C-alpha cells in the first residue's frame, strides 16, 4: 500500500475545505488521473472536470498517466492567476 500527500491551493483549497491531507492508494499502478478522480469523489465541491485538473508531483507538473509512488506529494494546481485579466 502507498500513501501520498495531497495539497490544495486557492479555489480548490476553499472548495475542498482542506489545505493538505494524506490519501492511501491500494492498487500498485494507480496513476495521477485515477487519484484525481478519487479526490473529486471525496471532495464533490471541487468545481472542475477531473480530466482537466492539472497537478504536480513533487513540485513538477505531470501528465495524468504518471504512476504514483509511495511518499509522493501531489499538488492540485488551479489555473494560475493573472492571465489577460491584469497586465
Amino acid at each position, binding site marked *: 500500500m502507498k500513501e501520498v500527500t495531497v495539497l490544495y491551493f486557492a479555489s480548490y483549497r476553499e472548495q475542498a475545505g482542506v489545505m493538505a491531507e494524506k490519501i492511501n492508494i491500494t492498487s500498485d499502478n494507480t496513476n495521477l488521473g485515477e487519484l484525481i478522480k478519487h479526490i473529486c469523489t471525496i471532495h464533490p465541491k471541487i468545481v472542475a472536470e477531473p480530466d482537466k485538473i492539472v497537478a504536480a508531483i513533487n513540485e513538477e507538473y505531470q501528465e495524468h498517466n504518471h504512476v504514483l509512488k509511495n511518499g509522493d506529494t501531489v499538488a492540485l494546481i*488551479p489555473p*494560475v*492567476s493573472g492571465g489577460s485579466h*491584469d497586465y
Partner: protein
Amino acid sequence: MPSKKYRVRITEDKLNPSDATHFASSERHGAAVVFHGVTRDHTNSRKVILLEYEAYVPMAKKKLEEIAKEMCSNWDILVAIDHRLGKVDIGEESLVVAVGSPHRQSAFEAASYSVDRIKQTVPIWKKEHFEGGEVWIGDADGFRPLEHKSG
C-alpha cells in the same frame, strides 16, 4: 560580474524595483528593462478593492528559477524576478522583472518573454476582493504548464 546571473524572490513585503534593477545592472550593460505588474482598480467593469496572492511557494520558486535560468541561457542578460504574496493594494506591484543587457533588444525580448512564461507555469493565484464579494482569478487559456516541459 556577479557570481549568479539571476535572482528570484517570493515575498510578502512591498516590492523594491530599484533593488531588482540594481541586481540586473552591470558596468558591461547599456540597457535595463524593468517590468512592473501592478494591481489595477478594476477587472472589466468591476471595481476591485484589493488583491490577495497565494502561492505553492517551493514550487513557485523553483518555476521562477527555471524561467530565469532559461532566460539567461537564451540571452546575454542578468535577471531579477520578484513576486509578492498576500494582500496587495491598488497601485502596488505584485510582480517586478528586471533584465539588464548590453543591448536593449535582448532586454525587451527577455522581459516580455518572462512575463508570458510566469503566467503559463508559476503556481501563484490571485483572489480579487471587490465590493460585495471575492473570487479567485485564473486564466485557463493562459495556463500551459506542460507545454515547455523538459524531460
